[in-house]
């Protein structure tokens, strides 16, 4: 490998340019987040986390949105995870290569690329109108569950694939049937990967705004949702609402909301990584 000579070669300039290309967006993100912290830090307080939205920016709080997000995630996970893991188990363990199977796989990979607002339209027509869920927590959770499903399936499949076949064979050799081997051996071994995938999907869903706006979740909600059929708000919706208001004080609220949202996502991602390390180690 010959260099074209000279103190600063074309080679190293190019290498620098590439590194710059990599660093630039990261630096930009860092600057933007730092700027947001500067704007919103002052607004962060106990009363902000436990208060309700208000027309007065100074007393506006995040509580209904925060609880709304929690309840939403809980319901969404309840709906998406069993179905997602079930589908992954089917595709990895039971299905024979066939037209139907590849059709299902094609569907899943396509659905992963469909814009989230299209899911919102589906949810609007199907859950809000046809099934009369109204603009409730249930409708929001169902819509998000459909959105997350492809992701849960894909990540669960990858987790299942990490279990070596020898494990399955060993179970059969001991006289177990398929389901038994899955239940006793495959699932527990792939659990860290599956859990990680679920947590990452939830982290993604926490930040989803477009589908919720489309099904109509934006309104002045000062109370914590009391049932799955009640009106609700969620953190990204509240941030969207505050950003849309022209007063600078509301922008500070939006910044504070962004900080809380990013913290929640940080925590979720950290938990996912920790789980992967912990459980992975234990099952060695």
């Amino acid at each position, binding site marked *: *490998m010959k260099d*074209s000579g000279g103190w600063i070669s*074309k*080679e190293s300039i190019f*290498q620098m*340019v590439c*590194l710059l*290309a*990599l660093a630039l*967006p*990261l630096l930009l*993100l860092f600057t*933007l987040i730092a700027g*947001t912290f500067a704007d919103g830090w002052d607004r962060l307080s106990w009363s902000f986390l436990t208060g309700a939205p208000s027309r007065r920016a100074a007393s506006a709080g995040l509580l209904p949105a925060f609880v709304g997000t929690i309840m939403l995630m809980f319901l969404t996970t309840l709906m998406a995870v069993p179905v*997602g*893991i*079930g*589908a992954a188990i*089917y*595709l*990895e363990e*039971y*299905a024979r*290569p066939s037209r139907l199977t590849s059709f*299902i796989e094609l*569907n899943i990979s*396509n*659905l992963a*690329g*469909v*814009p989230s*607002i*299209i899911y919102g*339209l*589906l949810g609007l*027509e199907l859950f809000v109108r046809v099934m009369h869920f109204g603009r409730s927590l249930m409708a929001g959770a169902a819509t998000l569950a459909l959105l997350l*499903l492809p992701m849960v*399936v894909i990540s669960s499949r990858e987790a299942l694939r990490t279990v070596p*076949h020898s494990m399955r*064979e060993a179970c059969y050799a001991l006289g177990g*049937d*398929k*389901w038994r081997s899955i239940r006793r051996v495959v699932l527990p071994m792939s659990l860290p990967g599956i859990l990680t995938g679920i947590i990452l999907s939830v982290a*993604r869903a*926490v*930040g989803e*705004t*477009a589908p919720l*706006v*489309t*099904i*109509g979740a934006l309104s002045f909600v000062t109370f914590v949702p009391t049932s799955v059929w009640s009106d609700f708000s969620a953190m*990204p919706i509240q941030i*969207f609402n505050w*950003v849309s208001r022209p007063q600078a004080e509301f*922008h500070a609220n*939006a*910044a504070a909301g*962004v900080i809380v*949202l990013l913290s929640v996502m940080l925590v979720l991602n950290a938990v996912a990584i920790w789980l992967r390390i912990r459980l992975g180690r234990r099952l060695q």
Partner: protein
Amino acid sequence: MPVSEAAVQLDQARPISERLIKYVLFACGAISIATTAGIIFVLLFETIAFFRRVSFGQFFLDTQWTPLFADKHFGIWPLVAGTFLTSGIAIVTAVPLGLLAALYLSEYAKAGLRRVLKPMLEILAGIPTVVYGYFALMMVTPFLQHLVPGLSGFNALGAGLVMGVMILPIIASLSEDAIYSVPANLREAAYALGATKLSTTFQVVLPSAFSGIGAAVILGISRALGETMIVAIAAGQQPVFTLDPRVPIETMTAYIVQVSLGDTPNGTLEYQTIFAVGSLLFAFTFLLNIVAHRLRKRMAGGA
């Protein structure tokens, strides 16, 4: 799907409960088919209702979009122009940077650095889009207003640039996979012939990774077309048929949000317009995703 001998034998001798489990799991998998069918059905249903009241010519040939006003125009072009303008700016930002970043990661970075930098890039993709929208409106646009005279508060440039940052990881990551999978012997052959690393990269590696990189770019475009919150917050709500990045525009996704915020009841023309626009959006992204899928298959098949 590897199925061992023992499993096949067990398969044939399965008791009812085992079969039941299989069917339940199959149903889980089939929900994906139901979802796709649901999306297509819902979109088609309302779009057909829309086209009963509005002609194809009105939709595809008019350059004004004022479906809700007294002087009704149903030309989709302003929304399509807005969408392509913001996505175009995003791609122009993300592709060069993403490719260069991918090259750095696969050709120049040492293993340790790569292990640190790659996840950091993924963080860019994990930031919620409403947060990006906040950045675009509150920080990027005011900054740009110092550089570009006459830049409106709502404009395509700020939103497009931020969208570019958001899709950069997609392009970088998939391109990196493609570049990484270029067989070593191709590179060795080039070096053996006396080529520098730089010319090898440009004349051997990139061309052979072309399908993979192409897939990455196409998926990036698809993601940008479907993006909603960044443009809804920062690009504006004025459907204008223009390619000027300094003025307020409206994208297809922002229009759907705008109407949804207004609580439209079932059956009205207003309600149907969001599905008509949604159908077009779905068609665009669906086609792009299929093309990307084919390209990736080609890459995996024989790079």
